[in-house]
């Protein structure tokens, strides 16, 4: 019976698949130094940033694409990708000036930029393709000294801050995709929370990949000064595409003394159709540094989309008594592949980290958890607890865990546990017995399984995440 349900619901087409006809400015595909100069010129960037891009590009040409991940990545022709796309009618001053087509897109996505967001108290910096379209609540935040704007704006208006912190957490030579991003990054968000300020609202950005054949290369930089707090949300949905789209983003977070940053993501890019064609390649480098004492960083991610996911949000625990958390739900269905996890690098004394990862695989997908916990020799009394659970829905999918633990200090306590299982027949029987049909029961059980992580999401997001999870899972069993 579950096979039937499985078949039935895998027929569901991607609910968020559509494209909007907005005039998009695209530069010809290909990557070389001239293209990078052009991007930089179009964005009116200062000299140092161009130098940084070129340095990154030159380094990138010497690198090879990593092949250690448990992924089958078809060869990518980097010369066939267009590295810059911007909606033409940009820089609107009020909502009325925003392209109505674009607004419609957001409405279809259930992300109204207008009153609903104001009512829900969120400032939204919506990125459509590469240029920031609209930023709300800027003025309110500015009163507190908080800077929340697109990365390009930050480059123009706060070049000193950008120059000071950019690439300090993820250097341009960090890895293949980080180097590529550093060379051609288009736009992203910039957040600066000044000393002692508690950001009064959840900061949120929606990324969308819209124009065909344009890889999106965002770069996000979050700086939380001493004693500040911010919760940042990022959500993604992408329209249906037949060609694979490359996405190589960088997120850098700097957390100073006594500060706290919460970073939450819901990722639901187009995963390809049920035969595995199309879909987004999501190769992301996310890393935060707990620089000061008592700083705190938490990553929460719900990964339901993308054909291939290669993503390891990491924390460097440099400050004494700093702590980091990583909560993840990764769902793969059909031909999706995910290799995701985290790295916790303990350097300071009395640092602690907690990893909770829940993987769900269905269809013929492969879902891997790959994580590193490294305790440096000077990291006294470091503490880590990792738990990664996998659930298999179907007999053609795979679930894998690759936890690495490297301990160089005897005062450390590092624990890891992992389980792999399927939904037990007892549980389904229990639900059936009480009049809940199998499909709903599976949905219930899976949601309960992921609850621990979903609970970590901010309220507004939790609802959307649950919905997304349901949609993805509907496409598999429940």
């Amino acid at each position, binding site marked *: 019976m579950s096979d039937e349900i499985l078949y039935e619901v895998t027929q569901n087409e991607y609910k968020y698949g559509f494209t909007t006809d907005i005039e998009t400015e695209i530069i010809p595909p290909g990557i070389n130094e001239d293209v990078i100069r052009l991007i930089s010129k179009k964005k009116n960037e200062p000299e140092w940033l161009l130098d940084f891009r070129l340095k990154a590009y030159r380094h990138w040409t*010497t690198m090879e694409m990593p092949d250690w991940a448990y992924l089958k990545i078809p060869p990518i022709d980097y010369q066939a990708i267009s590295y810059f796309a911007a909606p033409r009618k940009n820089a609107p001053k009020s909502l009325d000036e925003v392209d109505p087509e674009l607004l419609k897109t957001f409405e279809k996505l259930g992300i109204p930029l207008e009153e609903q967001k104001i009512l829900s108290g969120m400032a939204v910096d919506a990125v459509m393709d590469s240029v920031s379209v609209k930023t709300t609540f800027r003025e309110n935040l500015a009163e507190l000294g908080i800077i929340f704007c697109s990365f390009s704006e930050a480059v123009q208006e706060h070049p000193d801050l950008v120059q000071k912190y950019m690439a300090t957490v993820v250097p341009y030579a960090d890895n293949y995709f980080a180097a590529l991003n550093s060379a051609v990054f288009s736009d992203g968000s910039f957040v600066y929370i000044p000393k002692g300020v508690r950001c009064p609202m959840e900061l949120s950005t929606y990324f969308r990949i819209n124009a065909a054949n344009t890889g999106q290369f965002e770069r996000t930089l979050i700086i939380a000064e001493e004693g500040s707090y911010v919760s940042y949300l990022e959500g993604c949905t992408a329209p249906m595409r037949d060609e694979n789209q490359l996405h190589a983003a960088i997120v850098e977070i700097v957390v100073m003394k006594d500060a706290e940053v919460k970073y939450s993501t819901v990722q639901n890019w187009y995963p390809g159709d049920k035969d595995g064609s199309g879909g987004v390649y999501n190769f992301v480098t996310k890393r935060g540094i707990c620089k000061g004492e008592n700083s705190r960083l938490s990553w929460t991610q719900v990964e339901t989309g993308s054909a291939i996911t290669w993503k390891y949000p990491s924390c460097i625990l440099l400050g004494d008594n700093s702590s980091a958390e990583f909560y993840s739900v990764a769902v793969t269905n059909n031909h999706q592949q995910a290799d995701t996890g985290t790295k916790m690098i303990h350097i300071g004394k009395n640092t602690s980290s907690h990893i909770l990862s829940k993987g769900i695989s269905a269809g013929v997908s492969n879902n891997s958890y790959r994580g590193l916990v490294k305790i440096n020799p000077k990291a006294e009394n470091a503490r880590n607890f990792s738990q990664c659970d996998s659930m298999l829905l179907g007999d*053609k999918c795979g679930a*894998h*865990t690759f936890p*690495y*633990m490297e301990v160089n200090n005897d005062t450390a306590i590092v624990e*890891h*546990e992992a389980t792999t299982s399927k939904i037990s027949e007892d549980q389904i029987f229990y639900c059936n017995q009480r009049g809940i049909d199998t499909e709903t029961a599976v949905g219930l059980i899976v949601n309960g399984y992921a609850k621990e992580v979903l609970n970590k999401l901010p309220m507004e997001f939790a609802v959307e995440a649950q919905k997304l999870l349901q949609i993805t899972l509907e496409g598999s069993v429940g």
Partner: protein
Amino acid sequence: MTNSKTDIQTTTSRKKEAVVLEQPYIELYEQNEETIHIHSASALNHGRRKAFEKFKELGFPTPRVEIYKYTDLREPLGVDYGLNIKRMNFPVNPYNVFKCDVPGISAYLYFVVNDAFYPMENRKSHPLPEGVIIISLRKASEDYPELVEKYISKLAEKHVDGMIAFNGAFAQDGFFIYVPKNVVLDRPIQIVNIMRSDVDFMANSHNLVIVEQGAKAQVLVCDHTVDDVRFFSNRVTEVFVGENAFYEHYKLENVSRKTTEVSTLLIAQEQNSNVLGNILTLHNGITRNNIEIDLDGENCETYLTGMTLSDGRQVVDNYTSILHNQPNSHSNEKFKYILDEESKGGFTGRLFVAKDAQKTLAYQNNKNILLNHTAKMRTKPQLEIYADDVKCSHGATIGQLDEKAMFYMRQRGISEKEARMLLMYAFTADVIDNIRIDALKDRIKILVEKRLRGELSKCEGCSIC
């Protein structure tokens, strides 16, 4: 791809680094291929050229190879070792140098000096049951060519890596154990590997164990060194366990600090068979144990346990891989490490469950205690699962002795040293309890206790190391 030119550059530079270590062996092989052939067990000659080509392709594993990430063999491989490819006899009486007896074990005792098997033909006290063959592989390929050909190198070819390929090119002999159908050996077989040489020496050997349907065998392999030179041993052991058969493999390592050992144990299990592996490392230099167990039949049971007590600059890396290729099998893995001083531990526990291997139960556990600031532990439990109706779990911890337990004992007048000893002893107990040979269990208990008390600073009974 835009960077094809640079691709080539990096690969060549990587090869350059490797070739330096491999070159002397490649030359040695090419110049002496015939000599190696003449003095070798004929069964090992068939795949020799192929293995050599494979070795040329793969080279020695470096930490850049994912599964050798935590073992760096480049330093020990850089030493200029002697190889005994002409199979000269080493003047040694094994009984004189061997004193590491297990009291009361009354095993079928055999010696391997370096890589040469010492036959025990005039054994009167315990004659082997009828049909059981324990001889050198060289003799076996002469006397029982069909039997040897049927099994030899089957697993080595399947799991080939740089070290196995190297072994395939240079190994000339090893031991051969054959337990025919439904024969139950009433006492264990003890194979003592003794490394003895006046110059730095490398031994390659290839062993073959066949336990037929319904048979039962226990094999204890002890490693010892008697000279204070640098040794490198690279041993491949293939074990075929038939239907309903029982097989136990104990590996006890007690060698000098100058010894590097790469030991590959490959086991294939058929339906309803039961295998116990126990890997005990007390004293060593650098040790890399590769254990690959294929569960090729249904309803197999596999227990794999291991324990390492290390200090000084010991390096112990256990790479284990249990492949559930068929449904309804059960595996349980448990490894424990106590690391002191500047020792380094590594553990990889790979659990693979194939697509149709439903109803698999697989558990894995790795617990480690670091006693010192400079000790290091790397652990990588790894699950790869392609079947949905399975129960798999793994757990790994790295930590210290329980302070509450320490406090409890100190409160009751037990000295700190004694309390620590007791806790460590208790920590290793469940690995020791898995030993099914009582005499060996008692012996290991004593050895571990001595080792933990710091009394066993060298392998007991050996004269020099």
